[in-house]
């Protein structure tokens, strides 16, 4: 009985972790390349959720409609990311980080109200796609199939991301841009395009994670500023710009939160923030990152 309880607690933590990993991976990617904390990443995630809801209404409430809606969300937010990067962000790269931070905060304000204007303030929800509905019993604890699906998506994205970054030509360029932007430009690479590309990939990930969260959580205004703080903690724990760091950061976050509730109820929130502060103090570049 106790073992199955601990197991289900562990699985709960893992589900949280994999959701957060999807969101945080994009945040970490942009930070790794551009050295910018993108507060608007949470807004992109929220827009992904709303777009997915909209897609489900348009296509088909059940069945394949969900997957089409998720693609729509990823693509829509990706396009938005491209526009934001090309029109605004580009001219801020040389400026102080204060201006970059505040620019992304301006986006948070504007996109948050835009979503309220378009979709209202009522909670919206999307039903689980039938393929993944239902649940299975593992070690005496009931696990929704959708959660298990999320737990496989997370590692898959981590592996694919790692392969692309470390074993492909594009990834080599990205890593070079990370190390020395000017030198890469001097060697003839189109650095601007790499930046735009990375920002778009990061936005797509945010949109996709927003879409995938809809069967589990209601879509409400304010989900943007709540999620960004959590994603931010994950990225700080794991190490900004490191994909495996973000992966393990989210696992640590999910499990600390999940078991923290058992040890000090009410203070699990405190424990993750405290963990973040301790890591910033001891190893500002995170558990798996490298010093700047």
């Amino acid at each position, binding site marked *: 009985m106790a073992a199955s309880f601990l197991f289900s607690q562990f699985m709960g933590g893992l589900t949280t972790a994999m959701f957060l990993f999807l969101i945080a991976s994009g945040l970490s990617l942009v930070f790794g390349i551009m050295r910018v*904390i993108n507060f608007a990443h949470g807004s992109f995630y929220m827009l992904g959720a709303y777009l997915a809801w909209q897609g489900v209404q348009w296509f088909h409430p059940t069945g394949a409609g969900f997957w089409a809606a998720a693609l729509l969300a990823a693509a829509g937010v990706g396009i938005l990311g491209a526009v934001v990067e090309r029109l*605004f962000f580009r001219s801020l790269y040389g400026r102080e980080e204060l201006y970059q931070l505040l620019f992304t*905060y301006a*986006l948070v304000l*504007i996109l948050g*109200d835009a979503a309220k204007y378009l979709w209202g303030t009522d909670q919206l929800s999307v039903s689980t796609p039938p393929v993944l509905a239902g649940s299975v019993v593992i070690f005496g604890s009931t696990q929704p199939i959708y959660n298990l699906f999320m737990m496989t998506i997370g590692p898959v994205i981590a592996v694919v991301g790692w392969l692309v970054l470390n074993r492909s030509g594009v990834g080599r360029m990205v890593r070079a841009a990370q190390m020395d932007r000017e030198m890469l430009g001097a060697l003839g690479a189109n650095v601007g395009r790499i930046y735009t590309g990375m920002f778009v990939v990061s936005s797509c990930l945010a949109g996709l994670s927003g879409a995938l969260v809809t069967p589990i959580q209601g879509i409400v205004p304010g989900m943007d500023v709540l999620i960004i703080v959590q994603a931010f903690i994950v990225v700080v724990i794991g190490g900004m710009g490191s994909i495996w760091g973000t992966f393990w950061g989210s696992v640590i976050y999910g499990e600390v939160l999940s078991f923290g509730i058992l040890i000090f109820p009410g*203070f699990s929130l405190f424990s993750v923030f405290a963990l973040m*502060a301790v890591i*910033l103090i001891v190893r*500002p570049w995170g558990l798996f990152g490298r010093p700047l």
Partner: protein
Amino acid sequence: MTSESTTTTSAAAVPAGRVIGSGSSVISRIPWTLIVFLLACSVPWIGGRYNTFLAEQIAIDALFAVSLNLLLGTTGLVSFGHVAYFGVGAYVCGILMKTYELPFAIAFPAAGLGAGLFALVSGYFCVRLIKLYFAMLTLAFSQIIWAIAYKWNDVTGGDQGLPEIPFPSFDWMNHIPWLGDLKTSDQFYLLTVFLIAVSLAIIHRIVRSPFGRVLTTIRDNPERAAFIGVNVRMYQLAAFVVAGTFAGFAGALYGIFSRGVFADYVFWSKSAEVMIMAILGGMDYFWGPPIGAFALVWLNQEITDYTQYWPFFLGTILLVLLFGFPGGILGGIDTLWQRLRRTRRA
């Protein structure tokens, strides 16, 4: 005073606390601060209840923004968690006055002390980090305060907050003609204006002191400051503690003014709001943040009159500022002034 044309090579070379139009003898001789102070004091008599409410909000925000600007504009530290010290001040004062029924004369200094102590502890770690990591750690500390405020039901009231914080006792004021007839909220307004004027005067003195000059040197070039023998971290920490203390005072006043302290006050987005005030007014100027506070509170009131989409407008204002007027309102006026004078002289 004709050779005032300071040919600044970069924005970073602008000394904080510059006076606009300092070359013009007429404008600079008018005691602006005294006029503003007297105007602020007269609001309960000439402005009515609603304007007093707005003026009090502006005054408190002004102190909060000036305390942040001591870090942002003067020392060059981008703190993204300044609301933590505001919140500590508000909770310390609120808890002492409501739960322990202590008088304001004890609770108010205690709020500054509590915020200052927390700034000392958190700042000790923050100033060890550079730039972006500094911003992140300040954000982390402010979220720790938020988590405590949100979850520690027994002390902070949790998500219900601490409603109905009492006003200080104004028995002493009732014996003074003019003041005795006022409503309690107006009496508190006058006390707030007085305390904020004193606080601003102290911060102004600090910015203009040799200590403040060293802070500006650190902002412009920390390496050179260290090279000439300045203990950079020590000075940054001192600025952090002073800024935190005054943010705590602002928070204490705000808790009483809004008749309650709630966890929402400490959420990270509030730090961004006060930062917008400082930048909107102009963070290179001492009076920039108060002007930013005035502009934002006034705009907020005008815009929320006919639309609920205030954040959208705030975001748009911020975009215009970042891309069009990085110097803020005072920076814009200053540039205009310089240009006018140049054409007049030519």
